[in-house]
């Protein structure tokens, strides 16, 4: 089953209420009214039993009901790693475990899926083997060019993740170095990681480089002092550094971690001259404010604000410094009353460059209307998402009660984008139409710098598929269930997935009406299932299903 709450919530929930005390001395029943869940927690790699692990049991139903977290029980494993919950009423439960030095995990967890434990007559809920993976760690020391420790540096950890059936490199954690220049990331899952450092020389002095003469007077707002010779050796920055010795993610050395690995990634930062760039900004009236920032896109989901220093030399003229030479994004923030707009453009930063952002063509804005075919109004929480096919970057925006939406906060590069409805969940996209962009399925193309207007035609009535995965006529727990649309290529939003529970059962919600192939794949969790060529070879072994609006279907599927 899919667990949408964070794992931490599962642990926390346990403690809002004491566990119900099992009936003191139940009269020996013929058919018991309560059952046991028991098993052993082990190191998933070595098979060694793990004592002192907390095993937490939560009924699966309250998870979807945020108002009733008063549930959950906890048991601690003994020296043999054994745990047992007695007096468990029939039902469906989510089991999770944590232990110091190991990664918090749900039972047979894959991504946010787990094998839920079904408890009841004839159900097998004892002698479970709960494998926990030892947490790995990456630590290191940062020193400057004089081999002094760099304290308060920003250390970023990127994880090459397998999400949505695609490999992506995402920022997963961020810590600061301590006074000894040391950092430490612990409890890491096995996988491939990258480490980057953003730091500033603590002694850096940027000052201003340019002077503006206006009406024969030096304009020097804020008492800024011009640089003199001595200061120039201090007018330096550290560019973002990737382990080891790289300036960007493609050049970075991957750190491959297995369970329990302790990796070291040390850095020695080298200063480079800080650039001083003149930026012309649009003239503002009194109720407008303009700000300039410099960002660097580092990974799929990660744009970092560089510690740039921005000095206004004159109205409409700023000097930006504190950044190294290179290509960065210059972000212009304009405030009109309470509204703020951001505009970003890629610029080459080098000394004495002049960047004019006054007349730069603004990037295209995507806006449109969401129409529900029965004309019903939309809830306040309605949201749509744009996802760029190239970078996987996504942007969300709210939809008004009458269906209008606009991504004006998110200027977009030309390219292919997919639209999804995030809220309400019962709504699905039938088609897109646009007079200003080419559409195909749930995707459209931004080809020029012209704004794009899109009409989303949506319908209510998502279907639902429940079923059981069988392997040699026996229910198969823990297998990956994939519901794949016939066209594997252009509709990633139509895929649905689950993990079968201890009785082999699964459920797929919010299925957009249409024709699909249902697949059950054993050991399928490492498959790049979003790649059509990977999934294609399983299609023939799947079950073909047709889902009509609001239809609930039960399907049995053979495990491949």
């Amino acid at each position, binding site marked *: 089953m899919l667990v949408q709450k964070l794992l931490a919530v599962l642990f926390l929930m346990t403690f809002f209420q004491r566990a119900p005390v099992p009936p003191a001395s139940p009269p020996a029943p013929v058919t018991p009214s309560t059952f046991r869940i028991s098993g052993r927690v082990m190191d998933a790699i070595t098979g060694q039993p793990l004592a*002192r692990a907390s095993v937490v049991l939560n009924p699966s139903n309250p998870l979807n009901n945020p108002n009733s977290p008063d549930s959950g029980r906890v048991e601690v494993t003994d020296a043999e790693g054994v745990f047992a919950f007695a007096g468990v009423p029939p039902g469906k439960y989510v089991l999770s475990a944590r232990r110091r030095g190991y990664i918090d995990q749900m039972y047979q967890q894959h991504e946010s899926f787990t094998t839920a434990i079904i408890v009841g007559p004839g159900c097998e809920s004892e002698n479970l083997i709960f494998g926990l993976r030892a947490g790995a760690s990456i630590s290191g020391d940062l020193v400057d060019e004089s081999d002094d420790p760099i304290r308060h540096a920003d250390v970023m950890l990127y994880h090459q993740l397998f999400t949505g059936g695609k490999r992506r490199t995402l920022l997963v954690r961020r810590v600061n170095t301590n006074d000894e220049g040391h950092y430490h990331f612990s409890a890491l899952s096995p996988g491939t990681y990258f480490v980057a450092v953003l730091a500033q020389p603590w002694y850096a002095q940027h000052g201003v480089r340019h002077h503006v003469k206006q009406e024969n007077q030096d304009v020097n707002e804020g008492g800024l*002092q011009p640089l003199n010779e001595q200061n120039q*050796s201090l007018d330096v920055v550290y560019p973002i550094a990737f382990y080891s010795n790289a300036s960007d993610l493609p050049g970075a050395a991957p750190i491959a971690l297995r369970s329990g690995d302790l990796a070291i990634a040390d850095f020695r930062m080298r200063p480079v001259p800080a650039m001083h760039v003149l930026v012309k900004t649009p003239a503002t009236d009194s109720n407008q404010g303009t700000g300039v920032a410099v960002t660097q896109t580092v990974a799929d989901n990660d744009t970092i604000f560089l510690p740039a220093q921005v000095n206004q030399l004159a109205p409409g003229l700023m000097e930006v410094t504190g950044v190294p030479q290179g290509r960065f994004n210059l972000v212009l923030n304009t405030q009109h009353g309470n509204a703020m707009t951001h505009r970003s453009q890629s610029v080459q930063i080098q000394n004495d460059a002049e960047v004019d952002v006054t007349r730069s063509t603004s990037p295209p804005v995507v806006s449109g209307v969401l129409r529900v075919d029965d004309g019903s109004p939309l809830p306040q929480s309605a949201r749509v998402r744009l996802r760029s096919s190239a970078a996987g970057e996504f942007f969300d925006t709210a939809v008004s009660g009458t269906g209008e939406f606009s991504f004006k906060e998110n200027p977009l590069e030309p390219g292919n984008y997919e639209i999804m409805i995030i809220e309400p969940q019962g709504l699905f996209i039938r088609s897109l139409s646009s007079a200003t962009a080419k559409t195909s399925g749930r995707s459209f193309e931004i080809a020029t710098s012209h704004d794009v207007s899109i009409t989303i035609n949506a319908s209510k009535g998502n279907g639902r598929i429940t079923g059981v995965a069988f392997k040699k006529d026996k229910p198969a727990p823990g297998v990956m269930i994939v519901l794949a649309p016939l066209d594997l290529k252009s509709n990633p939003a139509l895929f649905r997935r689950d993990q079968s529970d201890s009785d082999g059962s699964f459920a797929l919600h919010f299925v957009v009406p249409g024709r699909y192939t249902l697949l059950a794949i054993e050991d399928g969790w490492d498959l790049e299932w979003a790649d059509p060529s990977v999934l294609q070879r399983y299609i023939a072994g799947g079950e073909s299903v047709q889902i009509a609006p609001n239809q609930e279907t039960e399907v049995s599927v053979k495990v491949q």
Partner: protein
Amino acid sequence: MLPRTVLFALLTTSLLAEPYFELPLPVIVGSVYPETHDSSSLVSPQNSNDDKYSLRGSVVNSLTGEPLRGVLVQVYLNGQSSMLTGPDGRFQFDNLPAGQSTITVRKPGFFGEDDFQPSERGQSLAATGPNSSPVVLKLIPEGVIYGHIIDDDGEPIEGLPVELLVQHLQNGRKAWEQRTGAVTDEEGNFRMAELPPGNYFLSAGPSRNPVTFPAKLAQPGAQGIPLVYYPTGSDLAAAAPISIAPGKKAEINFTLSPQPLYRVSGTISGYSPSESVSLLLRNSAGIPLAYNSRFDSARGSFHIPWVPPGAYTLEADAPDGHGHSLTAAVPLTVNADVSGVHVILLPTVNIPIRMSVITSRTGTERFGEQENYFPAYVQLVARNDGLSERRYGSQQVVETGASSLELQNIAPGIYRVEVNPTGPLYVQSAMFGTTNLLESDLSVAPGSSPQPIEITLRDDVASLSGTVSLDNRPLSATILAISEHASATPRMQPTDAAGGFQLSFLSPGMYKILAVDHPDRLEYSNPEILRKYLSKAREVVLLPDQSAKIDLELAKVGE
């Protein structure tokens, strides 16, 4: 530590005027003084024609005397110049005009003297000119407190909050202040750096979540780590300070025993169903503890899981839905599950303030008459020994066109009342019913009726002037004027460089006047502490409109 004015005067004179070189110069940390052993290296002008000079010097570790490399030295003199010291700790700025320059020195891991005064950063003065000498600047190395925490099975305790408290003097009263904090890592280690020299009190816990300590968790009854002050106790007053001298790295290792955690539950009444109720447990030191609480507004029931044994105050606060607040405080002793606690929210009290000004001088009538002008500002200070002094300031309220001051949403309790005149006035009396607030605390009873505080101010203020000296030599100091009124905060004022002082707008009455070198180290609001210094104090009785003059001898704090 010398007050800023002294430093100023001393440096200016010692560097410029020959005769003062004979004065025994104190070693001033983070500041400048002549490097007498190296007089041959006195700097001469680079080019005497255009009057440009060099400023040379070095930076040393105040503890070891070792030269410090890579220190950022900045000189402000007709602009800013910056450089890093070389491997020998030396620096040299060329092409400076003659004059007084401000020098700042910085390096990670070190403090300048003035870093301990939050408003300023380690800076000093030096002179450049034909006869300027090299300067030596000192930096104080930081302190570090680190260590690890294990339970009685030797298992490291992960995720435990660790905090440092310092006791400092605020208006001559002891007050606790939270300085920095950390959380133990997976090996139970913690580390807190960048500590200025001083005495630190370390607290560990409480554990936020018993799951952190699986070994001790069993059904029924979770266990967890309570709040512990180093070395062992739950009582802050009995805690042992960790003394951090410059550059000291103190290792503090703990073994903590998990204790049973209990559940506190009960009902709350008197709340408005549309508003939320916030619940807070404070320990006996008045420190709020981060425990999760749950309140079911439909049933009026609450519970707080995992409370370690101890004495607490359960505080509840809620808006009443009409712009005012409700409050309750219930003392609790927890050594088992506590159920059936009944919390009754009561309205807080609004206390109107009536002020009158008696004027006798011309030109001050306006203080009594001006519209929207209040001749004084009133603050209530909660009487507790807790971490932070809670203060409630008077607010302006406008009713039927007339504005007045009011103390709003005051919870029942006992308060010290501070009345601060905003003009050349003094407080003649402050009464709450029959309570004289100049002598006694204000006691606010639950649900009490809005009785006003009546304040009378006068303009026939007195003043006092004089000079401070030590061994017949005038010197700068800080004057403390301690009033006979028990609740009045002593007046504190620095002298000028020559020891001269002038205290204005004093309330007539009897004062003990004391000149001290370090008022920040003197708990002068404590009569026991103050008694030791009274032999050096002068007692004066000031009459209305009187301008008195006295001379004082410096009392050195700590001697």
